[in-house]
């Protein structure tokens, strides 16, 4: 069925809910893995409360970086300015900017967590927080980049508009990696 632009069709409650709810359930099942990882790390988080403070940002930032890169890539594909040629230097500018953003944000996260911990009295040394935040953060950034390229390319080849389904799936999958890597790296660094 072709819905003409501006008709009420795609704005019906039934069609919005019917289109989105199955995707929401799928995404919830994906992110459930992050929840199970968090639950299994409960003792670690109880002992080092400052790690809990870092969790929402660790989980969210990878997804945010993936979303920024994916929408930039899909816009370029729509405009026909990208063919996924490894010699395309603008692609490398995108990758470089994502890595630089990740380095900035995860440094800021470590410093922010350190300051909050110092004020609240359950901190860890800044060097430890920097090691945990940057190792897990940069790994997640690399995963976000790989997934964004793969998903945008796949949906381009399959003729699916990446904005509808690909970007939410990439963001949520990267969220899961963020949690698993963060808990793994923290446990390893703290010898838990």
């Amino acid at each position: 069925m072709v819905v003409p632009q501006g008709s009420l069709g795609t704005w019906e409650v039934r069609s919005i809910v019917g289109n989105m709810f199955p995707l929401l359930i799928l995404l919830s099942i994906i992110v459930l893995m992050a929840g199970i990882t968090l639950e299994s790390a409960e003792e670690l988080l109880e002992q080092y409360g400052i790690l809990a403070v870092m969790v929402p940002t660790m989980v969210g930032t990878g997804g945010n970086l993936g979303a920024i890169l994916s929408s930039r890539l899909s816009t370029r594909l729509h405009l026909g300015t990208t063919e996924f040629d490894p010699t395309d230097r603008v692609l490398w500018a995108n990758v470089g900017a994502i890595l630089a953003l990740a380095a900035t944000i995860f440094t800021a996260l470590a410093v922010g967590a350190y300051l909050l911990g110092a004020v609240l009295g359950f901190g860890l040394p800044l060097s430890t927080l920097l090691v945990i935040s940057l190792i897990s953060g940069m790994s997640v950034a690399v995963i976000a980049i790989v997934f964004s390229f793969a998903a945008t390319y796949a949906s381009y080849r399959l003729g699916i508009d990446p904005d509808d389904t690909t970007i939410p799936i990439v963001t949520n999958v990267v969220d899961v990696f963020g949690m698993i890597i963060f808990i793994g790296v923290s446990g390893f660094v703290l010898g838990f």
Partner: protein
Amino acid sequence: MGVWDDFWSIYREALPILLIALCGGLFAGLVLEGLIESVERFPGLLVMVPVFLATRGNVYGALGGRISSGLHQGLIEPRFERNDRLVNAVVASFINGIGISVVIGVITWLALLILGWDSAALYEFVGIMLISGVLTSVVMIFGLLILIFAGYTYGYDPDNLVGPAVTTLGDIFGMLFLLLSVGIVEVIV
């Protein structure tokens, strides 16, 4: 434009948004730290946290995208009025936001059952998710609409507002209402 200029323009454009999201994330983290004490009363509670937070982005990010496209296309006006499209989009977001919250309560309980882990009762999970789902929906939907409408009226492109607004508001209010509803269910049950 050289590679270096490209690099800087992407970096400069995205950094403020990510820094705002970082502040929201740190606040949400402080609330999460407080929530960990309640885990003994409700085993398995932590499983729901990332799923609940991710859902805020999925449901209300979609609403924000839809509203800003509607504004760009001239299908809706930037104010609260009885416009069929606006009302439908809001009603659908309430159904999606509250419905998926209840689903999260159920699948969390099922996952813990399958893993054989210690778990709170199904009605406790569903109760916590229902209360926090309803409260977050109200604040997120009206907060987001007020922000988008005000931004649009003052000449900001709503497309650039939606992402950071959803992430930051969703982290802050999602965690606050989760903590509140855990407290409510603790008292009632």
